[in-house]
């Protein structure tokens, strides 16, 4: 019995307790799955759960919780569960009204990597066989090594089969079989450069930014949405101009507002139409927060986020004295 069948069985049991369920359904595109909102038992058969479910459905839960009276059910991967835990720990969600249905994960494929590998050809089919991906393009069948095409976050995932918190857990017998990689390797490459080179690197990346705000809108923790300070005239933080500086400043707003909150789901980078490596910024910020405040976002519900609390004596902060 696959994890998908077990998930459907579980949801059939509990669907009557829920006002609404957020899950994945099949899409016409071979590399993607769609989010689906289910109210009736008949629609449960449309659910899917497979290695293409890269989307973080926790994105929807905050707005949904404002709109519905009863319980909202949500299908999550263990990594997505940490986004919900973070929202709960900040008091933004009602624990009673949120039902976390966590399915064990065996890694998800990053469709952007597959598309890039095939040079942007149109993909018409995708199958997984014996650790190989059979990707059909219009005139050819390509065999790719599946282990190279997982989402970045899967290579250092520790919780694929043990979510920190859940209401219902569906175990996944399938081992991910992914060779773990060094999480901070790409940060070290950047940090080994000189300060001007780093500036030029980011200027180059952000010269592509079109300020579409996809990164903000897809983020499960950026609940400000259209009340974001970048859209305000008073106080006036940012102009509507599109250039490198403004794009970079917008990203700094995101970094500052997500420091100590980001659970590194990588959705911002996935949603970016210009492929700006936003996850690197988030990873760096999480690394600093962990080192300074010994805090990892999305792990415990009772722990206060680092910027909402303080200590008299901060062990990890060394203040410089200029006098």
């Amino acid at each position, binding site marked *: 019995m696959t994890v998908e069948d077990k998930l459907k069985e579980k949801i059939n049991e509990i669907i009557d307790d829920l006002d609404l369920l957020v899950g994945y359904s099949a899409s016409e595109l071979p590399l993607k799955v769609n989010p689906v909102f289910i109210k009736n038992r008949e629609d449960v058969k449309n659910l899917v759960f497979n290695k293409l479910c890269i989307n973080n459905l926790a994105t929807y839960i905050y707005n949904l919780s404002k709109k519905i009276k009863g319980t909202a059910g949500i299908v999550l991967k263990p990594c997505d569960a940490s986004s919900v835990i973070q929202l709960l720990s900040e008091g933004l969600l009602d624990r009673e009204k949120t039902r976390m249905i966590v399915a064990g994960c065996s890694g998800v494929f990053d469709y952007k990597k597959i598309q890039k590998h095939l040079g942007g050809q149109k993909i018409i089919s995708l199958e997984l066989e014996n650790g190989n991906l059979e990707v059909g393009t219009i005139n050819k069948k390509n065999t790719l090594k599946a282990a190279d095409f997982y989402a970045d976050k899967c290579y250092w995932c520790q919780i694929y089969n043990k979510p920190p918190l859940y209401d219902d857990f569906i175990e996944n017998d399938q081992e991910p079989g992914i060779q773990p990689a060094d999480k901070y390797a790409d940060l070290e490459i*950047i940090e080994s450069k000189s300060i001007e080179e780093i500036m030029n690197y980011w200027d180059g990346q952000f010269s592509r930014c079109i300020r579409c705000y996809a990164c903000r809108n897809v983020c499960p923790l950026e609940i400000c949405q259209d009340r974001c300070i970048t859209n305000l005239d008073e106080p006036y933080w940012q102009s509507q101009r599109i250039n490198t500086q403004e794009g970079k400043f917008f990203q*700094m707003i995101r*970094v*500052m507002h997500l420091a100590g909150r980001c659970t590194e789901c990588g959705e911002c980078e996935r949603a970016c139409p210009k492929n700006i490596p936003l996850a690197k910024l988030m990873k760096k910020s999480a690394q600093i927060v962990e080192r*300074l405040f010994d805090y990892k976002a999305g792990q415990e519900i009772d722990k206060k986020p680092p910027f909402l609390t*303080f200590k008299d004596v901060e062990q990890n902060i060394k203040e410089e004295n*200029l*006098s």
Partner: protein
Amino acid sequence: MNNNENNTLEASNGFSPGGDPGKNGGVKIVAFLCNWCSYAGADAAGTSRLRQPENIRIIRLPCSGRVNPLFIIKAFNQGADGVLVSGCHPNDCHYSEGNFYARRRLEFLKEFLPFIGIDKRRFSYQWVSASEAQKWQNVVINFVKRIEDVHAK
């Protein structure tokens, strides 16, 4: 006289990125000072005639906890060479805990700045109380010196 006029004009227009650095070797530093300790300390330094470099433009805020890390990034974006934040010593905050929150945010920012290509030494936060005019003078002198070093490179 002419020189002075230029300076006032510049100051009222805000900072122009890559603009004329002005006199005194030219670095431009924005200082965010808390109303209760550091602003009074800087004031005391002025009234007791302690000489300090003139590169610092002071912005007075109610508390160092009022300092949004984005103020600092925005100042850098608009061409400041250095940013200094100063407030009451920990445990001395007029609002009892504002500077504790500030310390966490500012330390995070300080660690993050090098990753986006801004030298760590261009930003600093200090605790200066109302009576520490001498300390304020030292902080300003040392900070300006440091910024000039970074700028010269």
